[in-house]
């Protein structure tokens, strides 16, 4: 009897988590409406959507499984090159490229997952960084395949679903990226509010206790890592397809560093952190670099230092208050 009511409570909690919060619905409506509201900034919006997907992928392992990674760019790059090469040599169909990118990155994630299971946080940081650097050098060395430092040329994309061509204004690009982000987000949301997701959080919070309770730590973490890699690969594929170009920069360290910054700004562990952080980061970067085209790195660094030193509590507190008020509005009155 005791066990049954516990199971029922857990199930209830999971279902409660799956309900759609009014702020969420507003967020997605706004995201799709942005297409109509900001027609001259679609290129920037496209970059935000791709960065958001990339951040979502890191949130899956950082926020939910507690794995710190400084080399997530490896999967971004893997997805980008796989999709780009497919488009160049086999078929320019975007969805095929997307699937290919996700598969390739997921495979690399699966193969490297044993590396992140062992060792301390520091070891993991170094190993993930090392893997990203190795992939960078490999891409550089196999220049005949990847284009090396000059980048992959000749990526020609066919229209999405045979109908929507990629235009110079970024219209198709944004809707395509946003749709992919939305679909993958829905899947991630479902996964996170499932027994699997719950077990991940258990492993993150107290690995010893989790394994004592019968959770296969290693397998769970490996599965999460592979999923995260596939998502990052999707982001990479979108990048390659919407810009029709892949360069070594997708594997560069600053991609991983910027990504961490995005998650720090938005907060990890509730899925929207990556999305919100991506918006904030890109807008911040765009604003600062138009203001000081040369030294924007300084201001981003300063922002980061201040943010971590104390600013984050202030900003997150403010966000929570706003969201909370919104929720109460939606529920129509006091709790």
């Amino acid at each position, binding site marked *: 009897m005791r066990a049954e009511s516990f199971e029922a409570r857990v199930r209830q909690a999971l279902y409660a988590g799956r309900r759609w919060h009014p702020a969420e619905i507003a967020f997605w409506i706004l995201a799709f409406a942005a297409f109509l509201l900001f027609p001259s900034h679609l290129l920037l919006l496209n970059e935000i959507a791709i960065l958001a997907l990339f951040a979502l992928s890191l949130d899956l392992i*950082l926020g939910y499984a507690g794995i*710190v990674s*400084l080399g997530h760019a490896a999967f971004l790059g893997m997805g980008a090159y796989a999709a780009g090469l497919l488009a160049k040599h086999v078929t320019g169909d975007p969805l095929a490229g997307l699937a290919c990118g996700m598969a390739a990155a997921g495979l690399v994630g699966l193969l490297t997952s*044993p*590396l992140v299971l*062992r*060792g*301390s*946080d*520091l*070891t993991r*940081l*170094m*190993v993930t*960084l*090392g*893997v990203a*650097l*190795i992939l960078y*050098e*490999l891409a*550089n*060395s196999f220049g005949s395949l990847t284009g090396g430092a000059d980048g992959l040329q000749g990526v020609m994309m066919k229209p999405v679903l045979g109908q929507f061509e990629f235009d110079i204004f970024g219209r198709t690009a944004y809707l395509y990226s946003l749709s992919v982000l939305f679909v993958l987000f829905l899947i991630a949301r479902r996964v996170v509010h499932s027994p699997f997701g719950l077990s991940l959080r258990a492993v993150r919070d107290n690995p010893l206790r989790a394994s004592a309770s019968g959770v296969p730590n290693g397998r769970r973490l490996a599965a999460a890592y592979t999923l995260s890699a596939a998502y990052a690969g999707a982001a990479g594929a979108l990048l390659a397809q919407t810009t029709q170009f892949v360069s070594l920069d997708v594997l560069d*360290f600053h991609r991983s*560093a910027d990504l*961490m*910054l995005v998650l*720090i700004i938005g907060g990890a562990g509730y899925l929207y952190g990556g999305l919100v952080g991506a918006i904030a980061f890109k807008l911040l970067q765009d604003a600062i670099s138009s203001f000081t085209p*040369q*030294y*924007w*790195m*300084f201001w*981003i*660094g*300063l*922002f*980061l*230092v201040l*943010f*971590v*030193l*104390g600013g984050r509590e202030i900003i997150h507190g403010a966000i929570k208050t706003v969201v909370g008020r919104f929720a109460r509005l939606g529920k129509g009155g006091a709790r």
Partner: protein
Amino acid sequence: MLTILFDGIAYGMVLFVLGCGLSVTMGLMNFVNLAHGAFAMLGGYVAVLAMQRLGLPFLASLPLAFLSAAVIGIVLERLIYRPMYAKSHLDQVMFSIGLVFMAVAGTDWLMGSTQQFIRLPAWLQGRFEIAGIGIGRYRLFVIAICGLLAVSLQWGFTHTRFGSRLRAAVDDARVARGLGIPVNRLFALTFALGSGLAGLGGALGVELMGLDPTFPLKFMIYFLIVVTVGGTSSITGPFFAAMLLGVADVVGKYLVPQVGAFIIYALMVVLLITRPHGLFARARA
């Protein structure tokens, strides 16, 4: 071939000086300080400026590099590193990356983005041959200085009171505090020493590795490798790790130039898989 070995050892020595400060601060304060490279860069620029603007001889600029980095280290530790000790590793990493960004952009603004050069004194230029091995004078100098440093650091670590207090604090800070060891002051002094060593390493490395505002980003991976592979609880660990990596990098590039660049990363990954806590670390409780 032996010449290459010699070059590799010189390179490894510089890596050691650069990395050992980081290793000790990381082991002691459990703080992931990716901004260590910025202190190295500072030392390098101080040395260059001292020689160019103040006309100081090369030898005098080295202690100046050490001191300036150490002083900045103490100031920063007091002001902004202290509040970060209690935060998560992720926060510390991002904090130090933020510092690196600021240092890189700030240096670019102050000094411009071109490479800086050091004019070595005549007695350090050129090379001579011994038994068929080409010995570069500057590299010999570097090996001598760094070797001396390594020996004195190891001696200080194991034979002085400061060293034993440091080792106690690294093993278990709480108990050390309980025994009356002034751990906070130890932190500050060690951080200063570590940063000073980085500054010295940066100044020594200008001739071998170049110096420009992107130095911390380019070389961050190298000293991080020294620290992770060498472990954080001794001086000998990073020393051997630095030697191994310096030699492997140089020899690898000589034997197989096409893949030379990523031998060092592959080696690191392999080492970390087989010994996740570093080559020489004892298991941490």
